[in-house]
């Protein structure tokens, strides 16, 4: 049986429009790096023209998927997550939320806009939160194989205990997309909380690393997300067999994989912020951030 991904679209011409000419000779210093050394864009406010992008992407009739995991007490975050997504996430696009939960009855019915759907997918609960955390990669890759490849073009895998605060649009679309973790963007690579034990498949040596990416946001074309999550899952399985669990579970494996399979687009910490941190002047607009919460209680 063949898995047929949703059809590929050819290069679509952009209709004529009025927009300002790009200014090639920038005299003002830009505050954030806008390109990685492998020429992947780093997305932040001011680097893109939202209207232009909308007109490039709109005619393609794309469907964007979102996976969130709401297991145990995390079901309480779904309402706020979905309501804020309805306000800010991919306005004008077809969206399909996939909510994975061990308790479908605890998922509230949230009113969705036109062209937007939610599917609730039952999964097994686990007594240990580490178990839940390390099963997501496997669950996502299976979900893509079993159904999502037919339903969506792009997929974002997001943490549920978060809220959208400002627009998140087609500027985030790319083959394979990572987000810079808000806690480590100003820190040298030796201080990144990579897994440092060589026994783990997530091991990163001292001289390696580009950015420390957050496990709460990643995505891309559905085929690339399939490859990525499967690769992470294989690493997690190998570690399990060797009786080791990486320092930050899936986030460690995600970071290992993003070194050898560099993302084609990187989201600045505007797209993954921690509200407990003071907002630096270089970050103009916070779009997606944590809810302050009592993590110990949630994981008990």
């Amino acid at each position: 049986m063949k898995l047929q991904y949703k059809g590929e679209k050819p290069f679509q011409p952009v209709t004529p429009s009025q927009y300002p000419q790009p200014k090639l000779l920038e005299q003002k210093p830009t505050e954030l790096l806008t390109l990685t050394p492998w020429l992947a864009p780093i997305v932040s406010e001011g680097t893109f023209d939202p209207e232009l992008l909308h007109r490039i992407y709109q005619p393609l009739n794309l469907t964007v998927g979102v996976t969130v995991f709401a297991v145990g007490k995390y079901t309480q975050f779904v309402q706020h997550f979905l309501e804020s997504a309805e306000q800010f996430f991919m306005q004008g696009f077809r969206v399909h939320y996939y909510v994975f939960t061990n308790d479908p009855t605890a998922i509230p019915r949230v009113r969705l806009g036109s062209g937007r759907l939610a599917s609730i997918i039952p999964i097994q609960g686990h007594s240990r939160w580490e178990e839940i955390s390390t099963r997501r990669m496997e669950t996502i890759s299976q979900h893509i194989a079993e159904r999502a490849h037919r339903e969506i073009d792009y997929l974002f895998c997001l943490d549920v205990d978060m809220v959208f605060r400002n627009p998140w649009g087609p500027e985030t679309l790319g083959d394979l997309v990572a987000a810079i973790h808000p806690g480590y963007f100003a820190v040298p690579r030796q201080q990144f909380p990579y897994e440092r034990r060589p026994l783990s498949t997530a091991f990163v040596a001292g001289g390696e690393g580009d950015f420390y990416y957050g496990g709460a946001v990643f995505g891309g074309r559905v085929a690339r997300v399939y490859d990525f999550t499967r690769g992470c899952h294989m690493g997690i399985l190998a570690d399990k067999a060797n009786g080791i669990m990486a320092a930050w579970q899936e986030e460690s494996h995600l970071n290992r994989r993003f070194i050898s399979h560099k993302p084609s687009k990187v989201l600045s910490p505007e797209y993954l912020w921690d509200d407990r941190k003071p907002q630096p002047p270089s970050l103009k607009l916070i779009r997606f951030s944590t809810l302050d919460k009592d993590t110990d209680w949630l994981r008990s």
Partner: protein
Amino acid sequence: MVTALGPYGSNVFSLISTWQREESQSQDTHSVVLQRMQPEKKESSERDCHLDTCRIPEVPRLVYPKAQLLKPTRVDVLVMTPWFAPIIWDGTFDSAILDAQFRNITVGLTVFAIKKYVVFLKLFLETAEKHFMVGHKVNYYVFTDQPANVPQIPLQEGRQVVVLEVRNYKRWQDISMHRMEMISNFSQQRFLREVHYLVCLDVDMKFSDHVGVEILAPLFGTLHPGFYRGDRQSFTYERRPLSQAYIPRDEGDFYYAGGFFGGSVPEVYRLTMACHQVMMADQANGIEAVWHDESHLNRYLLYHKPSKVLSPEYLWDEHMLQRPPLLRKLRYVAVPKNHAEIRNR
């Protein structure tokens, strides 16, 4: 076997990697193992995508300095367009990483040496051997009306010259414009099977510094050295609405140079085919665009945004322009020529 390329704008490429589902023996009864079928054809392994590259290549462990989010590498120039195409300047890229990402690709370079222009080939090819895609596989496609006059020059491993005999035209403008037709014909007939990317260059030039895989993208254009500072109103776009190359005064991103463009074979095919067709339409309407194929290229790239833009480092003329400090390197530069002497003989 060549993938049939349909009319301009339609969806023509079938899926690249097809997946077969197999039941597997594993602990979890719900899991399935997906076997990826190896793409058989070169064109399918480097499939073009409208906006993304569709490749996430794996790189080995490398040592290189870490990028810093709070320290942009260039503050004197724009390094990314508003549609996220990188603008390639020295200092924005790391060749160690890019070479690893682009290993195992073959680049086709097209160059036209018609009538007296054969005289430029020797220096062009010799300097290309030193600077163009060093370490990667290269096919030089030399279009000429005098195959016997193509010089033999020593080539590095993995590089070859392919001589393609074509007709000449009386007027140099026609020679220039028909390059589009010839590239589109050969794209379909052979380039699709032989290379991953095409780089379409003028011959009356030489390479003077590194030109590498940092330029490769589904579709790229180069900033014309005479107009990178200018306002769109001053760009020498075709301004007569009768021409297919017409661009109104309030539109335009950049003025791109006709002498350096490229991309994946399917995208270059689309571009050259489209430009050829509209040039024929203009001819039927008794009009010739002010800068010929360059005018049509500019219209195409306005409405089909390139995925990378090369800075004027990649196309410069030292004899016509004074080099500003923002140009840290000159990579591909004009060779002086006597225009009256060399054209139309």
